[in-house]
């Protein structure tokens, strides 16, 4: 029967969750369009879409967890999850690459070019220095300094990677206390990280005059750190789900890909931060 066992692959039955999800995205997109153009009922539509999306995730992922508990996922299905998660993270890497590319281009190509002799007639006083808000920006502003909160945040995220690995060791050795404590610490570090980020943004907006509209620096700073922060938030939420499931007794030393997937994601977010710290804050 061994060929049969290898052959067997769980195919889920009919499900309406995908349609709910696509409806949610339609609502969110229309809501966002209305909101940004100040027509119609933008905010309510956007929020309704978000609510439907959360409902979909709750239902869909709940179903996945139930299937996993029922033993529907064998080695082969597990393999699919691994491939799938890996490629998903790769797509995220490419998303960040677009913004890192923009930062690179602005620093290395467009700012030097705007300060070159070619543009001396239009922008006579513009100097090629970084950080820069561009030749048209009027007013004073400050760039973010690396050696304060950002450095601390680096430390926080790196330690959270360590606590997560420690939790994983706990899971593999079936030391459940180590698992839950490790997960809890990881979530905690992530939350503190986000707290600092929020504080930093508010400080930047109110005291440093560093805003989204602060030229190329403001644009790249906020979109890179913003999308990163968004990913940390998602990662922390996923970790909380994993923590909650661990407390309920899910996961065995052999069978716990949900844990590993979230861990991969968390380490990915960690690595993105290291790049951010070096090229956005430091250099």
């Amino acid at each position: 029967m061994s060929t049969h066992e290898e052959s067997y692959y769980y195919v889920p039955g009919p499900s309406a969750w995908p349609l709910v999800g696509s409806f949610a995205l339609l609502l969110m997109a229309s809501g966002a369009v209305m909101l940004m153009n100040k027509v119609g009922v933008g905010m309510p539509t956007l929020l309704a879409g978000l609510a439907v999306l959360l409902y979909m995730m709750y239902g869909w992922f709940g179903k996945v967890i139930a299937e996993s508990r029922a033993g529907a996922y064998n080695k082969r299905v597990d393999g699919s999850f691994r491939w799938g998660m890996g490629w998903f993270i790769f797509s995220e890497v490419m998303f960040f690459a677009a913004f890192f590319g923009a930062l690179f281009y602005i620093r290395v190509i467009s700012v030097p070019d705007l300060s070159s002799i070619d543009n001396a007639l239009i922008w006579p006083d513009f100097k090629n220095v970084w950080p820069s808000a561009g030749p048209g920006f009027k007013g004073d502003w400050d760039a973010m300094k690396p050696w304060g909160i950002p450095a601390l945040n680096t430390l926080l995220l790196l330690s959270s990677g360590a606590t997560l690995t420690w939790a994983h060791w706990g899971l593999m050795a079936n030391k459940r206390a180590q698992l839950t404590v490790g997960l809890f610490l990881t979530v905690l570090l992530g939350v503190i990280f986000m707290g600092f980020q929020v504080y930093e943004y508010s400080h930047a907006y109110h005291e440093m005059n560093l805003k989204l509209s602060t030229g190329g620096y403001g644009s790249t700073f906020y979109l890179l750190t913003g999308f990163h922060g968004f990913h940390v938030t998602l990662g922390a939420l996923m970790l909380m789900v994993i923590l909650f499931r661990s407390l309920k007794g899910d996961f065995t030393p052999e069978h716990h890909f949900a844990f590993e997937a979230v861990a991969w994601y968390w380490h990915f977010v960690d690595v993105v931060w290291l790049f951010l710290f070096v090229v956005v804050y430091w250099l």
Partner: protein
Amino acid sequence: MNTATTTVNGHSADHEDHGHHPSGLMRWITTTNHKDIGSMYLWFSFAMFLVGGCMALTIRSELFQPGLQLVRPEFFNQLTTLHGLIMVFGAIMPAFVGFANWMLPLQIGASDMAFGRMNNLSFWLLPPAALLLTTSMFVPGGAAAAGWTLYPPLTIQQGMGMDMAIFALHILGLSSIMGSINIITTIFNLRAPGMTLMKMPLFCWTWLVTAFLIIAVMPVLAGAVTMTLTDRHFGTSFFSAAGGGDPVLFQHIFWFFGHPEVYIVIIPGFGIVSQVISTFSRKPLFGYASMVYAVAAIGILSFTVWAHHMYTTGMPVTAQLYFMYATMFIAVPTGVKIFNWTATMWRGSLSFETPMLFAIGFIFLFTVGGFSGLVLAMAAVDVQMQDTYYVVAHFHYTMVAGALFSAFAGAYYWLPKWTGHMYNEKLGQVHFWLSFIFFNMTFFVQHFLGIAGMPRRIPDYALQFTDFNQISTVGAFGLGLSQLLFLYNVITCIKGGPKAPAKPWEGAEGLEWDVPSPAPYHTWEVQPVVK
């Protein structure tokens, strides 16, 4: 369904999918079956093909004569933009995903795609995106009108239709990324025992490369349009010189996506053509391994040539030279493929059923498109050609006679497997010849228009371009109307027609021909062993 109740590890091994299926509309809404989803993709893409086609015919009607007759110039620009977006993202890409859904599991001996529910979501994301794109024509300010390449500063200035296009692209991107993750995972993880990578039919290989390209570049497009969105509404200055940004930055990011994208559009077609040519030559594909390497090489190289779209937007000469040589270099693996197809036919016992006709038409016309691409690749020449009808001719030779013809070849090739009936061969051949003739009538003359200097994306033109434009418009209507034959043929083939055997083509090879026609709802639940 012979193995529906095999018992594994004590519990029942049948798919959860074997339970009671909803019927009617709910069947299609909730399905996780790769064949259902494949069919939905194919129908959706054909519908979009008609929508985009009507836009093209409106464009061509306006261009029948110089001067402004039918549409306002703003609306003309919206039409060219939506036509491009809808054809690329709504018609061609979903068509090939439909083929992949139907055929990959059959070809590698898998019972379904790796992620059934996500597969359903990938499909059902398409209608909202299509809705956003099409309804954007009716909002204040109209649809996006900056061309499918969405260059700033135009995109920064336009109305809410632009935002709708941006979100539509985000949703389409999500859909194709999920679809591609599904495809890669299916190919890597669900192959039948003995089906090694180098035994896979070429269609699987081409989709493997395509899926990789999609996962690598769709997020980059998402990044680009996100920057457009924040520049529009949140005061960022990615594409504004006053803030230290640069509109050319958008072009770099866009084409870093855009050039791999044109290969995303054509590579699955390479796979289909390879299989069709070998079937109707009754010979194995010449140089299978070199075909695989050539596709992989094209995929990798496609990341290194993007700025050949930007020769006139300002670049150092050294960069122009680099992009020129790199672009020409892609002609090498492309040439390998063309020679291999030709060599496959060499001394084969050829027969010319409709799929073969489309495949041969593909080889001829795609080669023309490749050559005009090489002409455009020369920086010094392109300075004259950029944004003229020559470019329009080039990419329609690659995308219509390339991607679309290969899709037709695939559709006729696999229709018997899908429906259990033979299509009407006579009608199919008429469809091919009409398409072939009218296609050339529409687009060949555009080369001349471009060389003579007629700009693209313009509703009016100088008098001396009139003759060629009229020929092109007449051809376009012929081309458009011929497609109704295809629709008719497909519908009658679904409804009836001579019964198709499991293997309707004498020279065909591959696992898909081992299952009956029409392919039952569930196939390969016990994986075949490939020797």
